[in-house]
C-alpha cells in the first residue's frame, strides 16, 4: 500500500488481488441471500471504496484494520439498502433443481448499468484498462489523447463511478 500510494501500479495491483479473496469471503459470509452476483457487486463497492479512500491510510498504521474498517462500513451500507429488496435465490426453495451452468461468479451486474450512465469516453477508458489490460500509453495513442489526459480521465471516471454507485445504493 505504501508503494501504491507512491504510484507503483504493479505493487497496488498485487495488493488488491491479494485482499480480494479475503474480502469476497467476508462479503459472502454476510450476504448469502444476495446471491453470488449481488455479493460480487458489494465486493466491487468495497474495492472502489478502498481505492477512493486510500489516501486516508497513514503510512505508519497497520493496514489490515484499516481495510477491514472500510470494508465493514461498505458491507453494512450495502446490505442495509439492498436488504430492503432482498433477492431470494431459487436455490433456497428448489434444492432438487439441476444447477445451471451459472455465469462467471466474479462478474458483477451493477457495473454494466453504471457504464451506461457514464460518458462514453470515460467508460471506454475504464474498460481499456480493465478488460483489455492496456497501458496508459496504448490507450492514449488509440484515443488520441495525451498520457496525462488519460490518467486524469481515468481518475475522474473512477470517481464518478463511485458516486453513481453510491446513488444507486441509496
Amino acid at each position, binding site marked *: 500500500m505504501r508503494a501504491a500510494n507512491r*504510484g507503483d501500479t504493479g505493487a497496488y495491483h498485487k495488493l488488491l488481488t491479494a485482499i*480480494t479473496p479475503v474480502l469476497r469471503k467476508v462479503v459472502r459470509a454476510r450476504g448469502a441471500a444476495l446471491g453470488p452476483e449481488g455479493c460480487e457487486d458489494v465486493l466491487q463497492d468495497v474495492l472502489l471504496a478502498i481505492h*477512493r*479512500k486510500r489516501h486516508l491510510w497513514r503510512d505508519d498504521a497497520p493496514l489490515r484494520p484499516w481495510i477491514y474498517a472500510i470494508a465493514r*462500513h461498505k458491507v453494512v451500507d450495502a446490505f442495509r439498502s439492498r436488504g430492503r429488496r432482498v433477492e431470494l435465490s431459487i436455490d433456497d426453495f428448489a434444492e432438487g433443481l439441476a444447477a445451471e451452468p451459472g455465469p462467471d461468479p*466474479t462478474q458483477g451486474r451493477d*457495473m454494466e448499468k453504471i457504464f451506461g450512465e457514464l460518458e462514453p469516453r470515460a467508460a471506454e477508458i475504464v474498460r481499456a484498462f480493465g478488460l483489455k*489490460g492496456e497501458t496508459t500509453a496504448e490507450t492514449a495513442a488509440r484515443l488520441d489523447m495525451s498520457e496525462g489526459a488519460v490518467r486524469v480521465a481515468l481518475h475522474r471516471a473512477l470517481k464518478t463511478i463511485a458516486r453513481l454507485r453510491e446513488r444507486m445504493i441509496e
Partner: protein
Amino acid sequence: MRTQDLISALAADTLPQPPVIRQISRALVPAVAVSVVAFILFWGARPDIVATLGSMAVLKTLGPLALVALSVAYALALSHPGVADERRKIALGGALLLCALLFVVVFAQQGLAGLAGALSTPSLLVCLLSVPVLAAPLLAAMLWGLSSGASMRPRVTGAAAGLAAGGAAAALYSFYCDKDMVLFVLPAYSVAIGSVVLAGALLGPRALKW
C-alpha cells in the same frame, strides 16, 4: 465487469489524492473570505476594538477559536478510519465542560436576576442570528472538505464541523459584539454556536456519505 478487470482499472489510476486537511483548507479560503467580507460590510468592528482586545474581553474571541482548533482536530480524526480519536474527544469535551463550569460559577454569584438582566438586550437576537449566518459558508466548506474523508460516524463528524464553523463565526462576531458580561456571552454564544452544531449534525449523514 469482472472484479479482476475492476482491479486492473483501479491499479492503473495512480493519481495521488490530496489529504483531507488540504481539501478543507482549500475550501475554507473562499468561505472565510465570504464571511469576513460580509462581516466588514454588514457588521463592522466595534469602535473600541483595540482597547477590547487588550482586556479580558479578548477571551470572547480566543475561547471560540480554541474550540475551533479542538473540533477540527476531532473531526479530522473521525474522518480517518483506524485513527484513535479518544484523546481529541476528551480534550474537546474538557473544553466544553470548562465553559459550562465557568457559567455555573458566575451564575451562582449573580443569580437569576443577573442572568435575566444580562440577556434582556436586543443584542441577544442579533447574536443568535449573526453567528449562524456568518457560519453558513464555513460549515459548507468544512463539510465539503471532510467529505473526502471516510467518517464512520457522519452525524458526530458533522456536529464537530458545525462546532468549528460556529466557533469561527462567533470569534468573528465578537469583534462587533459590545456586550462583555460573562452571563451574556456564555449563554448567547453557546446557543448561537449550538444551532450551527445542530445544522452540522443534521447535514452530516448526507454530506459525509461515502
